[in-house]
């Protein structure tokens, strides 16, 4: 079968190549690997495959009643008549209106990521992030890595939208998260010089000085081409807005037209990859009658992945999919949901071991993720399923730190009570040197003390392990370091 890929940009990879953080998910679906490397692997595969024609810099512009697709290829409109069409156009960012929202310095999170991670340009020094979904949290973290000063993350809801391990990651950098707040105004004459945010309950206002306002207020399926050919759409807020009505094989209401990924509903890269595989195989199945077994295994894997994403599954139910699928109810995570800081009691539980040196798994939210399990040389980490919370067998744990390096959420630490040291994952530059005194920070980025770096383990995938000396009372609080020179 001949396949042609049309991509508007000059490179493949879409959103993935902007993702410099590690992905959750199962080991089978590239968990623990940074998005950009997942993209690179896929791109390699594609380039190796002879019967794929790649049209880069090629925007599909029209899909007409007679089945003709027009695309702008090398600055010329070309026409194609495919047997099957898979639309995987992803999503675009929602924006929210506020006063002076047209000032230069107001950016979408996608634009900030492209500037920063693709072109190596920082959009500004002081950034206010709007939205605490995974994108808002991750981009804040990446901005901090690029040495921008993130002044805060504003979230209109009463809880953090993204994964809480991501929230904890930014909190320990000292970035506050303002839940129940919204932006009402950008300040500045010709460019952004600040912002006014407001508590939606008390209407109390707060001024924050910044030169960039970054909007991460959610994504919407980019369905222009689907709309052109009159695919039936349905408004499903859980999936990000209008999504195409389709069956379990991702076949739309228009003959020969399939969808995959965010355009079918905002989800995550892992789901998108599985959907791509499913719909690709299904389109091939319609032509050849083969692949039905593989199609079924992928469907099962997708289901498995979605076990804890009640939002997505509830959305899919509105499309009459996953009808008798039961999502596990969300357990309450108390303040962690509002602050990104785990409750004392939960931490104490992890510390109750009598051992001298052991790992602390600050992983409290059920998310589909398991790389820690297979990283452990002594099989000390157990999980009842992909979506379960990992459990540590303290007797087996030797405190080696392997899991610290692979945890995509940077939620695992090793403490050594005897040596009075902590092993932390560290993804910033410059790296400290052995023996150097660094600032030791707590879960909110507050300075606890200055102390010495005992060892540095440089890892291949750039999550380096730093072992620092800390005083006894700070062992359970030390979660980040700052290099000061």
């Amino acid at each position, binding site marked *: 079968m001949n396949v042609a890929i049309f991509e508007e940009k000059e490179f493949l990879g879409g959103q993935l190549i902007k993702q410099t953080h590690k992905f959750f998910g199962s080991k089978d679906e590239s968990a623990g690997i940074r998005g950009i490397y997942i993209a690179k692997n896929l791109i390699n595969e594609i380039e190796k495959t002879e019967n794929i024609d790649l049209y880069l810099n090629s925007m599909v512009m*029209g899909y*007409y*009643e*007679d089945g*003709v697709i*027009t695309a702008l290829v090398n600055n010329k*409109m070309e*026409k194609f008549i495919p047997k099957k069409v898979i639309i995987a156009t992803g999503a675009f960012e929602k924006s929210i209106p506020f006063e002076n929202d047209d000032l230069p310095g107001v950016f979408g999170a996608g634009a900030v990521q492209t500037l920063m991670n693709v072109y190596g340009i920082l959009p500004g020094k002081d950034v206010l992030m709007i939205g605490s979904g995974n994108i808002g949290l991750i981009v804040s973290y990446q901005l901090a890595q690029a040495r921008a000063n993130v002044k805060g993350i504003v979230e209109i809801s009463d809880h953090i939208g993204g994964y809480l391990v991501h929230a904890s990651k930014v909190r320990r950098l000292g970035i506050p998260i303002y839940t129940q707040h919204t932006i009402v105004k950008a300040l500045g004459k010709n460019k952004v010089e600040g912002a006014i945010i407001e508590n939606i309950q008390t209407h109390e206002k707060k001024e924050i000085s910044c030169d960039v306002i970054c909007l991460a207020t959610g994504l919407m399926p980019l369905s222009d081409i689907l709309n052109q050919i*009159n695919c039936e759409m349905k408004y499903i807020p859980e999936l990000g807005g209008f999504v195409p009505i389709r069956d379990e094989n991702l076949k739309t209401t228009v003959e020969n037209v399939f969808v995959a990924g965010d355009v079918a509903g905002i989800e995550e890269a892992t789901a998108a990859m599985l959907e791509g595989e499913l719909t690709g195989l299904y389109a091939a199945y319609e032509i050849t009658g083969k692949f039905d077994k593989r199609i079924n295994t992928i469907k099962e894997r997708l289901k498995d992945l979605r076990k804890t994403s009640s939002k997505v599954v509830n959305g899919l139910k509105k499309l009459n999919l996953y009808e008798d699928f039961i999502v596990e109810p969300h357990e309450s995570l108390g303040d962690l949901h509002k602050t990104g800081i785990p409750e004392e009691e939960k931490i104490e539980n992890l510390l109750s071991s009598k051992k001298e040196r052991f790992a602390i798994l600050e992983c409290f939210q059920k998310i589909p993720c398991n790389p820690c399990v297979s990283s452990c040389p002594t099989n000390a980490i157990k999980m009842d399923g992909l979506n379960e919370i990992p459990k540590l067998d303290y007797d087996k744990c030797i405190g080696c730190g392997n899991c610290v390096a692979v945890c995509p959420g940077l939620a695992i630490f090793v403490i050594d009570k005897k040596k009075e040291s902590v092993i932390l994952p560290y993804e910033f530059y410059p790296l400290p040197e052995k023996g150097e005194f660094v600032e030791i920070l707590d879960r909110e980025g507050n300075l606890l003390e200055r102390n010495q770096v005992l060892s540095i383990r440089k890892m291949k995938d750039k999550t380096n392990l730093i072992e620092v000396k800390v005083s006894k009372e700070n062992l359970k609080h030390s979660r980040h370091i700052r290099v000061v020179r």
Partner: protein
Amino acid sequence: MKNRAAVVIIGGGINGVSIAYNLAKAGVKDVIVLEKKFLAYGATGRCGAGVRQQWGTKQNCILSRESVKIFENIKDELKVDIDIEFKQKGYLLLAFTEKEWNQFHKNVQLQNSLGINSKLLSPQEAKEIVPFLNTEKLLGAAYYEKDGHANPFLTTLAYAKAAEKLGVKIYKGVEVFDIHVKEGKIKGVYTNHGYIATEKIVNAAGGWSQEIGKMVGVDLPVYSERHEILATEPVNEILGPMVMSFSYNIYCQQTPHGSFVMGYGPKETSKSMRSTWQFLETMAKKVTYLLPPTKNLRVVRQWAGYYNISPDRQPIVSSCNEVEGFYMAIGFSGHGFMLAPAVGVIMKDIILGNKLTWDVVLDIGRFERNEIIKEPSVV
């Protein structure tokens, strides 16, 4: 929604609202306009909205001349504060064949006799008006500087507001699906929001007017055909007049907003409302040949709408012999926007039984009487 009315107008396009306004202005109470989607959903909102007086038949000349007078003074007429963006930058009609050039001579004579001071131009003179015009094979042109263009949504809106001020009720999202006729007389309409009793109905349903005819059992001599059109992104003003050619089959203009709007007549008729890549390709070839600088314009949208075509390419504004109380303003054949101000006046005359304000023959009987002179100058 009201459940009885003196007159129910089906269709919230420019003609529906113009008729409603003129009826209300003449003192008719209880006029209702029913629109299945929203104002200007049909051809009105999809059209080029050109306004020209250079026609080849007396009727079209008179109707457009009178309409232009109204467009020119629209604020005084309607007394609403809406700028309809009426711009008079002329129409430049190009002749590429002998036959066409001869017709232009005749047309200009007719137009001049009716007070429309159009004139004939040499290719050189045409180039002075549009310097980048490709004059290859051009024999000559006709030009009238009082022709122009208006914003179709805002014009519809202005008429609608004016009508509402005079008591007309306009209901959007209300679709007529049947008409109640008893003993050859109109009794009411059935809509998706219930029944409305009335003795007079005006069919102003544009591309859907044939279907309305069927509801009263009359086969109207009109048909609808898809016409495609496109718009570019806005640029600084470079083109004054609407440029149009019948033999080369194209019209192209720049709106006050800056975008170019253009189209041509289809080769085959289609009932689909979807646009085609063939149109995009052909249009690109045509316009870049005739107006070469347009090759640097970016097309942002293409769409389609219905021309409701009558046998002589002139509107049918008429009562109906078979059904008492059934009136129609249909068959505008691609120029119903510009004629709407005058059509509203004529329809009001017909419904009130007045002598027609202008000397025109628009009744449906003309086809049986064989009194038809076909409009020669249409795209």
